């Protein structure tokens, strides 16, 4: 899961925006101009900027200026398109999708002028396995042959399943078929790192660049300054432009102050932008100001906000179905800040994801269908239930808890809302020893493919395998479903695979184990002189690759 912070503070930023459309506003701003300094104001430092450790959307978006991945998403079109980045194309699968080969572009240079080679990529990926390089996504260690025993390159060992037959070719040997492996490789985990410039666990502040900008300075929690990388060449990069002279990333300003500053568009705010979404509490003013409409990028993230029902504790499916009908998504969305937060969800796959199929098994009215819910409860024998709901300890979440409590109260279910410390929310609720019956959850796919959603959230085998990090919060544990997931990931035909994922989504929804609430949007403001910001539906961030400052 890609998150706003390591522990997914997405929900903490209650977002409400009436601007539903993806590419609203004036974020492109006409013809690119050279020069100027872009300022990015962040409420906090990045968790990590080391490509192999990045797992937040802000860092992922920022690193695109510094580190190129094998493949990447071109977001300038109407839908994101996968293209080769360091690689010449999107890779070639063989051996039933278990072997992936990428050919590198020639002439891609590091910031010292040396060439980026397949060895650098191999070394970069090997770093993921070191316990010192923690925090990034788990795919490399899950899928590469021999990954379960390999512990990184620092003790002189290398991983044989990463082969570099020549400086411009890299071959990945996987322990299972992964049909969308080339979508994974768009994540910075697969970026190159030159061994000579690796500083290990302090690489966060010493990222060696092969992108259009390089790190001039980076002080944790304060500021990172990016300047032009003179060895970057547009001819080797199909995605990026090198327009602004400098990018200053300033960290640690209060989010309301950031919103206020950008809203004012005063002085340096004209050339500034934000990466964290507009805070919920400031949205009414933002909405009330039509002038701001042109200074907002609203990205539809492949994210779903939902409530999981613990099926081992709420065993009667009729009760779970009653909950599906009883929940009032209108009041729930109100708690999160209103319509701008996103559209009402009826499926677990979001509209931007490959495999999404539109269907609605429960109430056609987002406000719920109490009559139907009561009827289902009657069929279940009107049990007197008291359920506990876990939420983060933020005001927004407590409002959400109240919305659920009021809705379920009407069908005779008493809900105890339990706020859990936001910093440790997921480590608490993903521990199988947790005591809750209902859970607030959200999920943003790592890349827009159903394989990053359904198996992660509904593969019941992880309950035993990862007892402290079980993401199957509804404890759906159906061998038939699991077998389907396994076979789906091996289906070579994309169209058929996507169709099958859509059906799988529907099958899961039939179990009434989760209540999808909203497909999430992320609105961000920028100053009137910032141009070239494309909404990035992969990350839910304004894409920085073509940013410029208007003269």
């Amino acid at each position, binding site marked *: *899961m890609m*998150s706003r912070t*390591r*522990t*997914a503070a997405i929900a903490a930023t209650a977002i409400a925006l009436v601007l539903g459309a993806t590419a609203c506003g004036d974020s492109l701003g006409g013809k690119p101009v050279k020069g100027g300094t872009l300022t990015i*104001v962040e409420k*906090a*430092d990045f*968790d990590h900027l080391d490509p192999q450790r990045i*797992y937040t959307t802000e860092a992922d978006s920022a690193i695109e200026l510094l580190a190129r991945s094998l493949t990447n998403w071109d977001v300038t079109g109407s839908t994101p398109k996968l293209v080769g980045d360091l690689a010449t194309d999107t890779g070639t699968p063989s051996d039933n999708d278990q072997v992936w080969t990428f050919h590198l572009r020639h002439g891609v240079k590091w910031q010292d002028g040396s060439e980026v080679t397949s060895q650098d990529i191999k070394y970069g990926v090997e*770093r993921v396995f*070191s*316990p*010192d390089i*923690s*925090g*990034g*996504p*788990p795919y490399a*260690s899950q899928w590469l042959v021999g990954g*379960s025993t390999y*512990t*990184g390159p*620092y003790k002189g060992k290398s991983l044989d399943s990463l082969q570099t037959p020549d400086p411009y070719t890299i071959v990945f040997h996987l322990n299972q078929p992964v049909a969308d492996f080339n979508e994974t490789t768009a994540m910075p985990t697969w970026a190159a790192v030159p061994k000579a410039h*690796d*500083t*290990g*666990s*302090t690489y*966060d502040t010493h990222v060696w660049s092969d992108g259009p900008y390089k790190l001039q300075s980076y*002080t*944790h*929690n*304060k500021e990172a300054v990016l300047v032009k990388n003179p060895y970057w060449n547009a001819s080797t990069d199909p995605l990026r432009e090198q327009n602004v002279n400098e990018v200053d990333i*300033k960290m*640690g*300003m*209060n989010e*309301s*102050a950031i919103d*206020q*500053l950008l*809203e*004012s568009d*005063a*002085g*340096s*705010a004209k050339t500034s932008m934000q990466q964290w979404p507009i805070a919920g509490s400031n949205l009414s003013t933002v909405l009330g100001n039509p002038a701001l409409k042109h200074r907002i990028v609203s990205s539809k993230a492949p994210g779903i906000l939902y409530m999981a029902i613990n099926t081992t504790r709420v065993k009667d499916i009729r009760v779970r179905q009653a909950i599906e009908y009883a929940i009032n998504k209108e009041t729930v969305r109100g708690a999160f800040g209103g319509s701008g937060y996103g559209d009402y969800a009826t499926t677990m796959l979001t509209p931007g994801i490959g495999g999404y199929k539109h269907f609605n098994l429960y109430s056609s009215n987002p406000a719920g269908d109490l009559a139907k819910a009561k009827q289902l409860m009657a069929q279940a024998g009107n049990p007197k239930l008291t359920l506990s709901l876990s939420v983060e300890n933020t005001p927004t979440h407590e409002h959400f808890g109240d919305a659920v409590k009021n809705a379920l109260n009407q069908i005779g279910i008493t809900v105890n809302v339990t706020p859990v*410390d936001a*910093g*440790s929310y*997921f*480590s608490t609720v*993903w521990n199988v020893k947790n005591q809750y019956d209902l859970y607030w959850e959200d999920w943003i796919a790592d890349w827009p493919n159903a394989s990053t959603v359904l198996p992660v959230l509904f593969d019941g085998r992880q309950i035993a*395998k*990862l*007892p*402290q*990090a079980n*993401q199957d919060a509804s404890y759906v544990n159906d061998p038939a479903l699991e077998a389907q997931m396994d076979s789906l990931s091996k289906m070579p035909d994309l169209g058929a695979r996507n169709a099958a994922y859509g059906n799988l989504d529907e099958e899961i929804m039939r179990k009434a184990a989760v209540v999808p609430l909203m497909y999430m949007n992320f609105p961000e403001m920028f100053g009137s002189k910032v141009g070239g910001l494309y909404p990035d539906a992969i990350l839910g961030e304004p894409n920085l690759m073509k940013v410029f400052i208007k003269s």
Partner: protein
Amino acid sequence: MFRYLMRRLLAAAVILVVISAITFVTFFALPTDPALLACGKTCSPSRLAEIRHALGLDKSLATQYWEFFKGLFVDRTYGDQSITVHCNAPCLGVSFQSDTPVLTILLGDFPVDLSLGTGAAVIFLVVGVGLGMVAATHKGKAADKVAVSASLVGVSLQIYFVGLLLMWAFVDKWQILPAPSYTPLTQDPVGWFQGLLLPWATLVVIYLAFYTRLSRSSMLETLGEDYIRTARAKGLPMRRVILKHTLRAAITPIITIFGMDLASLIGGTAVITESVFGLNGIGKQAVDAVTNSDLPVTMGTTLFAAAAIVVFNIIVDMAYGIVDPRVRLA
């Protein structure tokens, strides 16, 4: 005097050791596991164990504390995998989050709080005592009533609100000042001043009220003392009676509270102000460290704040001695 100081410093060191031990134990009583956080959302038990080892969390609590303590006197080296991090004594540990020595982090943040806290404190002390003096000498009259009711308003205001309001007015609306930020004094004194003006103003608005009320009541109490009557009976002008005789005595109770306020400001309590204005000081560092289960930084910031309080306690006692000869010579 020297022996007294030595004794106080020794006691201070003991207090800090106790606080560090308590922080250590409390940290491990928290439900969050730093290794689990570092491991990410999809974390296998074997990887978790590796990370736990890398962070040194697999050792016993006592061993970990002993190593921390030893690091104060002996250099430590972290990491046995990637390039190692060297931490020179006195070593307060290395951040789990950024692999930077904690002392380096603290020294980097310290100037922010020092500038923020000292600047604001000087203003609210001088202005607060001044207003309190005016109010006390005009007790019951218009000036007193204005000062007292202004205090009430100030006391009920929130830093968050004041900060954003000031920023909206001066930075966003009128554009008189640049967006607050911290520039080192040595690098650009004007920038330092401009960048800190609003944060100071915010803290002053919040603290001023308290100091006005405190000094008003302290002044009133002192004005009732026999030696003030003596001073007037000598034929001294009222100005001199107030500024010399009354102020000197009235300031003593204020010194204690001021010392503690300044210590906690420098120690990082101005976290809301830091956060509103994007000044990254020790307060914000501390909050982030707790959120991220970054034990070494949590320890470092806690100890720093405690040290600030302890040191200022000693300074306050010595200042007392300077102001009040009875304490000095007793």
